[in-house]
């Protein structure tokens, strides 16, 4: 459903051709770029802020900006990364312009949930969903906003640690830690109840390292 990474080289070449055509003013190339990445950009936008109008404005600003400035943009081999990073920066900038909108949003929010006892409550809650997929869903919802952003960039959008680091303005090791903590929090929900014990014992080694 999303562009695949089957062959990153081919993908990069296709992107470069598309980008050059767009830089030369080809409207169809521009429309293709939009069409190709808009769904992913929107789902990422919704992760960064819940303000729908702000996402809309930011996406529109971003595409109009690159259309107008197309002659002066650098050559890129990853349009997707370029667009994601630009959209995030734009949303953050727009949020800063509208401080009243800040409270609900990620990146601005102190990472309250990160060290909380979410983990315990998830384990010991008895009346939660029984299906393991639903349990995982619930656990994902309990991640901190930054953890969820990193998980989404990694697993949904398929970015590398370096790319995520650049986007979220962190260093590579911090992203690694952020994701690692998220996975630790989620680990109980990876498996069905039957596999749980085996998995837990394996985890003890894992956590002890």
């Amino acid at each position: 459903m999303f562009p695949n990474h089957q062959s990153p080289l081919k993908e990069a070449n296709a992107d470069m051709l598309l980008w050059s055509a767009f830089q030369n003013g080809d409207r169809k190339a521009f429309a293709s770029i939009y069409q190709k990445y808009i769904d992913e950009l929107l789902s990422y936008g919704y992760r960064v802020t819940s303000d729908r109008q702000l996402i809309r404005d930011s996406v529109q600003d971003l595409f109009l900006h690159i259309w107008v400035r197309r002659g002066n943009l650098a050559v890129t081999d990853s349009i997707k990364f370029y667009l994601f990073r630009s959209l995030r920066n734009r949303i953050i900038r727009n949020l800063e312009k509208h401080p009243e909108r800040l409270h609900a949003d990620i990146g601005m929010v102190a990472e309250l949930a990160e060290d909380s006892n979410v983990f315990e409550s998830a384990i010991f809650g008895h009346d939660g969903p029984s299906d393991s997929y639903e349990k995982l869903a619930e656990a994902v919802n309990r991640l901190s906003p930054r953890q969820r952003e990193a998980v989404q960039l990694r697993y949904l959008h398929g970015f590398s640690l370096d790319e995520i680091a650049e986007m979220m303005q962190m260093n590579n090791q911090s992203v690694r830690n952020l994701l690692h903590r998220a996975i630790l929090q989620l680990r109980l929900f990876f498996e069905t109840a039957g596999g749980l014990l085996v998995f837990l014992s394996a985890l003890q080694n894992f956590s002890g390292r």
Partner: protein
Amino acid sequence: MTEKYQTYTLADFIQDEAFIQWAKSPNEAGDAFWEQIAASYPYQKEVIAQARQTVLNLAELSRPAFDEKEAGLIWAQISGQMNEAPVSASVFRLGWLRYAAAAVVVLLTAWGIRHWYREPETLYAQRTEQLENVHEEINETGNARIVQLPDGSQVTLAQGSRISFSPNMDGSKREVYLSGEAFFDVKRNPSKPFFVYAGELTTRVLGTSFTVRSFEKENVASVQVRTGSVSVEARAPRKTQSVVLAPNQQVSFFRKEERLSMGLVKAPQPVIPQAELARFTFNNAPVGTIFDSLSKAYGIEIEYDKEAVAACRLTSSVQEESLFEILGVICEAIEADYQVAGAKIRISDPHCN
């Protein structure tokens, strides 16, 4: 290199770059590699399978719900503003781009064509979806259907067409959204202009009657004016153009070419009462006078060379013939031809004795 995988837990697998890539987009090389790992460490087989499913679950679960219509709405905004935005000069003029361009054409066919040809289809949907309180009439019958609008105007909706409007029309404008073809008889109200949005065409009137035709699958959309004057704007990705139409004039918009073309309707109707037209009798009258009278009766400019027709006189009367039938009769008599050129009619030089 592969030894590390013998002690990998599920959590390790799902943090492994190569593993994530393969789980998200499996390919033959990846399949072979991970099958090899599973064969070397059979106890990892189940872990690998679960880890793979977990990567996919995490991808799905981390995706926020969003409104799928959003992409189209935003694009409509962007493409509307692209034309206004100043264009900066491109600095890339490399020779190899010619080859790149050829490759891009192939790559873009699917996306590009799908996009550009889909857009007009969704304009009606995009616009009406945004309206809060909207009434829609769809004509699925085989015949035209009459729809009364809240402001007293009347719409004759052609088959296969649909129209949306606010049930009370209480804003400062009267706005109607059309997909397909309809004849509008608009009640005059100078303080509340009447707008018809149909694909790229926006038609603005105060009180008049006209037909709008904009079927999404057709390349040509048009507006034909019966009475009054009508302004039409065509807003397309590359440019926005506008014209003002008089009675019996029509404008055609060619979607692919984004070209507006003025012309005359197929069957011009007199702008004076039919009864008055029926009283037109010409008795050995100069042909120039006849052309001038017809021009006034239909509100259409008729061009001819005064000197060339000076010698021509004709006796004739108008019964129920159409304008073009009348012109045909006259031209035959004076050995001339008429031609519709844009929104005018041009008469070639006659041969009168």
